[in-house]
């Protein structure tokens, strides 16, 4: 599927024609693989657009009429139970923790890349090591603390935990982005009398803006997806969207179209953020180790 194969003239050597055919075949194979991997997601989307009786048939009804009933039910058209509180809780926890991450990570990355502290690689690896260790190992004390302090079922607790979960990733990513900011510009600003907060806000942040945006999107995705903390530490009031999804099935019986609609809605922000950060995604996921 590379360049359209021109009509084979005798002047095109046979080896070249064979190479072109092979290349086309590999292109087709790549498309097939892409579609195969996307198929479950597309199936989820299609099912969400079917009426309940058409969603759960065997063999599947591919050409059943499309409807938005699944979405209407999910948003509480019949039951009055709306998903807005959990969606807003997820949004709040993710956005506030992302902001806090940026606020803490930007100065730290500055100290690790531009004004290098001594032993900066050791500090980098300390950050990384906190990310490598399982969250379950610290969950119980956090739960007990929250219970005694009366902060269970509160999104601000999630904000703090999500910040600690994402801070190492953000420091690593931003360190590699800030390393690309020319030191001379920063020095010029300092000569003009700018102090650190001004330098960060006016000089470093704008120059590293694309990298900072990608970091923010990745932190947002991880916070939005998180289930274990949210499941243990929130209840009714601060329930997040993933927790709501897990309860959704058991409490109302199984309505497949509605479940798929719910899954699509909850995944939409992550899909949007992920497609937007596509180029920087791998750098974030590999903690900045791969550029």
């Amino acid at each position, binding site marked *: 599927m590379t360049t359209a194969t021109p009509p084979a003239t005798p002047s095109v050597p046979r080896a070249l024609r064979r190479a072109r055919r092979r290349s086309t075949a590999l292109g087709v194979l790549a498309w097939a693989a892409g579609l195969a991997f996307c198929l479950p997601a597309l199936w989820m989307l299609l099912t969400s657009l079917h009426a309940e009786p058409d969603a759960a048939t065997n063999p599947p009804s591919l050409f059943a009429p499309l409807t938005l009933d699944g979405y209407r039910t999910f948003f509480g058209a019949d039951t009055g139970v709306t998903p807005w509180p959990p969606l807003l809780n997820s949004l709040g926890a993710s956005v506030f923790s992302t902001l806090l991450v940026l606020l803490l990570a930007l100065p730290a990355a500055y100290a690790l890349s531009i004004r290098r502290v001594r032993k900066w690689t050791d500090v980098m690896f300390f950050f990384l090591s906190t990310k490598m260790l399982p969250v379950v190992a610290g969950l119980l004390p956090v739960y007990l603390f929250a219970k005694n302090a009366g902060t269970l079922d509160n999104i601000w607790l999630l904000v703090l935990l999500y910040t600690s979960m994402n801070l190492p990733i953000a*420091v690593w990513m931003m360190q590699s982005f800030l390393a690309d900011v020319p030191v001379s510009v920063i020095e010029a600003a300092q000569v003009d009398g700018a102090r650190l907060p001004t330098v960060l806000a006016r000089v470093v942040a704008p120059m590293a803006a694309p990298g900072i945006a990608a970091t923010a999107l990745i932190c947002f995705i991880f916070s939005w997806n998180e289930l274990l903390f949210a499941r243990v530490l929130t209840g009714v009031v601060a329930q997040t969207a993933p927790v709501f999804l897990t309860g959704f099935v058991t409490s109302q019986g199984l309505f497949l179209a509605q479940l798929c609609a719910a899954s699509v809605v909850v995944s939409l922000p992550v899909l949007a953020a992920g497609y937007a950060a596509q180029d920087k995604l791998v750098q974030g996921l590999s903690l900045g180790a791969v550029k």
Partner: protein
Amino acid sequence: MTTAVGTTPQSPPRPPAAPRPKRPGARAWATRAPLLPALVFLVVVTQLPFVATLVISLFDWNSLSPDKRAFNGLGNYASVFTDAALRESVLNTILLTAGVVLTTVVLGLALALLLDRAFFGRGMVRTLLITPFLIVPVSAALLWKHALYNPEYGLLNGTLSGIGELFGDTDPAQPDWIAQMPLLAVVAALVWQWTPFMMLILLAGLQSRPAEVVEAARLDGASAWQTFRYLTLPHLRRYLELGVLLGAVYIVQNFDAVFTITAGGLGTANLPYTIYQTFYQAHEYGLASAAGVVVVIGTIIIATFALRTVSSLFSEEANRA
């Protein structure tokens, strides 16, 4: 969630130390100050709870009978290693992690190789391929459990009966996927989600491969297989290591898929799920903490290798800078 893992990875070679004039303390603190909020925050929010877990792991403590809380020494650890259910969840964690990581690396490598070449609509195919990774994990697990695996109307059995009908088979096989192969069902769903991650890392590796060298090999008459075996694979080695180790670190911790697809039933409970269950439902705080510490020790072993790998990539970066 603990102190620095294992040995400190070697920092990049420094230039021969020219004795620097001693800086006044204030200057040094001014350099360090921007770092401190992040460091202090992380120590408080991640390290302190782990220390508390260590302490709790030494107590016999069930929250349903708070009066009987007593110091138990290493008793909980002995239980962790002798309890059959916990041993099974250790085994499950290993099987799950190894199965998912190895499969995703092989699939991810194949996909990365396919995507490393120019073809019509490459950007679109890449977007299609990363989609599984961008479905919220809980949604993905629910999708597999209900829309794909369901024995009565799931897509898998639906396709089987659809194909059966085509060939006049009125009674096609309709396996109950989750009941018959629970661990494999969880593995398949995770492989679907994590293959894009491996693909992205390996694709980044492939694209960092110097084009001239590959071109030179081709001109020298190396076959595609020879180029792959002797050029691409050695170049990819560190990316493969990085993918395996980061994948292992992420998947050892997996909770969402096990919790959603099987709820730890049918012998699929892994350590994170078992720990969650031990403290959240069985209220065995001491035992859960000891199991948590054991997971940490296991992860330290993996993470030490992971840090070395990241460190080698990173020190190249540092030297280039």
